[in-house]
């Protein structure tokens, strides 16, 4: 039984570490600000959830697990909120995402009258 739990928690922890590393690789590889935001969100949704689930299995029925679950809930809400705040700040200050060439914009995004700081 303990072996089964150990194996399961190791799978979760290794999976979480994998997604966190992938998020880091994506941050380096992606070309600009907007796509990098998406790379980071792989680390803080998938990576975070798997790591915490794996650690909960290691903790068993203890107070540690309760704390881990509370941390998980907290990050589950604050993570996307922080990402939204960063993305919104970029848009408001005029940083325009590069829309793919084959997509025709039906309508202009908000604040499209703010000049792009990159010129």
């Amino acid at each position, binding site marked *: 039984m303990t072996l089964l739990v150990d194996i399961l928690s190791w799978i979760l922890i290794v999976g979480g570490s994998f997604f966190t590393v992938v998020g880091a690789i994506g941050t380096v590889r992606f070309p600009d600000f907007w*796509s990098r935001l998406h790379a980071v*969100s792989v680390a803080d949704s998938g990576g975070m*959830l798997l790591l915490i689930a794996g650690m909960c299995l290691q903790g068993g029925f203890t107070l540690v697990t309760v704390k881990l679950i509370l941390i998980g809930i907290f990050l589950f809400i604050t993570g*996307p*909120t922080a990402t*939204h705040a960063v993305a919104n700040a970029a*848009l408001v200050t005029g940083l325009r995402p590069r829309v*793919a060439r084959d997509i025709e914009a039906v309508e202009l*995004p*908000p604040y499209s009258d703010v000049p792009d700081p990159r010129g």
Partner: protein
Amino acid sequence: MRVVVTALILFLLWLLMSGIYKPMIIGFGAVASIVAVYVGQRMDRADGDRVALLLSPLKFLGYLGWLMIEIAKSNIAVTRTILTQKMPIRQNLFRVPSCQRSELAQVIFANSITLTPGTITVETEENDFWVHAVSFSEDDHEALADMGARVAAIEPGGAA
């Protein structure tokens, strides 16, 4: 009544967080929760806004389960985008209508969009969100409309 229940819940949280059950530490916890409730009461005088729970809990749990599966799927999709040699990026910023009635449900919808890797809610307007996608496909409009309908369904009185 409400005050006593709030104090008890705070005290319970303290007990769960501390893990050291000596009389003095438990005493600190009791005092802290009473002070917290007292300060909350004083703030209530300035802002008497009651927060009502406007969701049906069971449907919300069902939605959470569905959301986890979506997060897993899009995690794999973005991971594939990152690790393939050519990186098939197709960025787009587009408008998504939000059909939820309460503000809380709108927040849940916007955060769900951001939580699934590959899409980020960038700007919110009265009845629309502006969503940025890293590898946009025409199906995204439909997928996000489906997610919005699911969030609208966990509001009480929402369509099944």
